[in-house]
């Protein structure tokens, strides 16, 4: 981090390497005569060219290869790839196999949200450099967070074989269905986690939140019967309501010089917001009565547009995922086949699922042998990039007189509100403030 005072009327603040985000990025903010002139979210995560290296590979490899885009949310990539391939092969995965997919996604949401709530985001609100620093004064809460996180990992391990880059997910379902006993062994810890998640909601709702309500276009999946994971139509708070196959008819990507991650925009409308706050605000009615009650009791409305409060929404989603995991496991009987049969054929297919950080879209074209001819992947952070820049613009404008060190930290926090995953978006942070 560097603070440079050029002269009495001008300041430059930069964070060269933004901490507690996954991946590499930074921010540059230019202020002239007390006005914000420019905000750039700089992403210098080295490009890894996934969409190019998928060409020529077999459709079955897509879930394993795309998982490697992100170690924090591999399930999102595996699910998006599987659904897109199944779209090509006209396969609908139903019944227990579909439930198992929801269960492994519950594991990823619990793990990823607990990591962000307790280890990456909460320390900002309480003024600690990290959860490890926070643990010295708040050992009970950090231990609670680690235990919730561990449960998420255990669900992924039982269903997926391991927590990072699970090996059991395949087009059509799973290589092997877990035994009823192995899943039921998770129930006592899930019962504990229900109380722990409620405690987490109460704890995070009492953190100090700045007044910062923004006018967002929220975009999320919407399913007629469920809080969304893998399926649904794409809807927005501005009236978008489309099948996922129309994604690129409404959303375009552009390549800006200051980022190795493409920026996504709604055509003719501009930036939009994906992630837990969008999901929650567009799907509150799909949460169970007990989760709705816990959200209301924390003071959260049916929608939330203060990004600093996304930490409460994540805690609410942990509770939802815990309940959903309990429900799935209690009804589980081992399926006769661990994956559903299909016939490989040529075509183009789409998959869009709710990663912990928001919608993650995949499109593939394969030939009649299932060889990938074209791949397009739009991760959540690349969709939020432009919106993060606008949040920063307003936040700095609203707090222009803050001293540099405080401004720096609060800008970092405003970015961490999005739980940005930079390795994903490049397939992202560093704060640089330039004041004159």
């Amino acid at each position: 981090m560097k603070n440079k005072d050029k002269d009495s009327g001008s300041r430059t603040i930069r964070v060269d390497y933004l901490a507690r985000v996954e991946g590499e990025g930074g921010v540059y903010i230019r202020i002239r005569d007390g006005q914000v002139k420019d905000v750039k979210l700089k992403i210098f995560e080295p490009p890894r060219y996934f969409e190019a290296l998928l060409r020529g590979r077999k459709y079955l490899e897509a879930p394993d290869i795309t998982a490697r885009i992100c170690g924090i949310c591999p399930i999102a990539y595996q699910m998006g790839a599987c659904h897109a391939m199944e779209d090509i092969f006209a396969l609908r995965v139903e019944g227990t196999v579909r439930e198992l997919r929801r269960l492994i996604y519950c594991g990823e949401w619990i793990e990823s949200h607990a990591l962000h709530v307790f280890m990456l985001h909460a320390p900002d609100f309480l003024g600690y450099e990290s959860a490890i620093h926070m643990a010295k004064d708040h050992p009970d809460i950090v231990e609670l967070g680690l235990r919730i996180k561990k449960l998420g990992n255990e669900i992924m391990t039982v269903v997926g074989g391991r927590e990072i880059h699970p090996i059991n997910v395949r087009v059509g379902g799973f290589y092997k269905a877990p035994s009823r006993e192995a899943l039921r062994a998770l129930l006592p810890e899930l019962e504990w986690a229900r109380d722990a998640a409620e405690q987490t909601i109460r704890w995070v709702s009492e953190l100090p939140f700045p007044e910062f309500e923004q006018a967002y276009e929220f975009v999320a999946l919407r399913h007629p019967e469920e809080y969304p994971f893998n399926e649904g139509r794409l809807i927005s708070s501005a009236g978008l309501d489309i099948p996922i196959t129309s994604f690129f008819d409404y959303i375009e990507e552009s390549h800006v010089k200051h980022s190795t991650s493409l920026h996504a925009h709604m055509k003719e409308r501009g930036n939009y917001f994906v992630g837990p706050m969008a999901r929650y605000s567009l799907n509150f009615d799909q949460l169970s009565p007990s989760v709705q009650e816990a959200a209301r009791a924390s003071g959260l409305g049916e929608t939330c547009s203060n990004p600093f409060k996304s930490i409460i929404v994540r805690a609410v989603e942990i509770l939802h995922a815990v309940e959903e995991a309990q429900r799935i496991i209690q009804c589980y009987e081992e399926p006769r086949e661990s994956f559903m049969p299909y016939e490989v054929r040529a075509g183009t297919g789409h998959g869009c699922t709710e990663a912990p950080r928001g919608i993650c879209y995949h499109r593939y074209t394969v030939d009649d042998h299932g060889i990938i001819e074209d791949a397009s992947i739009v991760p959540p952070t690349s969709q939020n990039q432009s919106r993060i820049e606008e949040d920063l613009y307003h936040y700095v404008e609203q707090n222009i007189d803050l001293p540099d060190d405080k401004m720096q930290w609060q800008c970092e926090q405003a970015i961490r509100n999005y739980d940005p995953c930079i390795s994903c978006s490049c397939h992202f942070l560093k704060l640089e403030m330039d004041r004159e």
Partner: protein
Amino acid sequence: MKRVNQTRKPKLAVWKFASCDGCQLSLLDCEDELLAVADAIEIANFPEASRAVVKGPYDLSLVEGSITTPHDSERIQKIRKVSKTLVTIGACATSGGIQALRNFGEVEEMASIVYAHPEYIQSLATSTPISDHVTVDFELRGCPINKNQLVEVISAFLHNRKPNTPGHSVCVECKKRGTVCVMVSRGIPCLGPVTQAGCGAICPAFNRGCYGCFGPMETPNTRALSDGWKKLGVTDRDLVHAYRGFNAYAEPFRKEGDALEK
């Protein structure tokens, strides 16, 4: 491993190059050990977990990711200079990772497939392991690494001993956990016989063949395995792809893939 000064806590740094962040997440995934590790060791530079940065030099540097940009090829030199012991974690840092598939194709073409303005992108033609650039004291394999092996490497370093991470094949792990050979009994092609142990032989236990996350074992007989796969009806093209996975640029896998392509 070099001696640690016992009068103060050793300083740990975690560095990231081109990667998915999964291997450094493995450290945060040690939920039961994390606070104890943080007691025994000073987490001096770990941006994914903390905004606090303690100045080097560092007693132990864990390096994740491969070298893919001109800037990173300079950065690793500086990191080596401030690190007493440097350990690479994971397939990217140890063999170049999945992004090393670019080493077999044209990087300019790849950039133009992904980016509208490839001229904005500064990228090397290759993705290379850390050991191609600086001296590496120990390489921990895996895509991702196994967190128990990571704890073993950190404890070994703390006690000035060599880490106990076997160099034998995945086959040994299958025998240990009592998994019947998927290749022999069910005709499922498996990279286990040429892949280093460490994952716990997960894939065969889930009815699928090993796909080589941990890279080549010591002295692997890739030719014999390729012949075995061919007898199962696997095409040369599919065999090439099997070797060109997450450790494509590791020498034994690279050579076998290249030989099959000719």
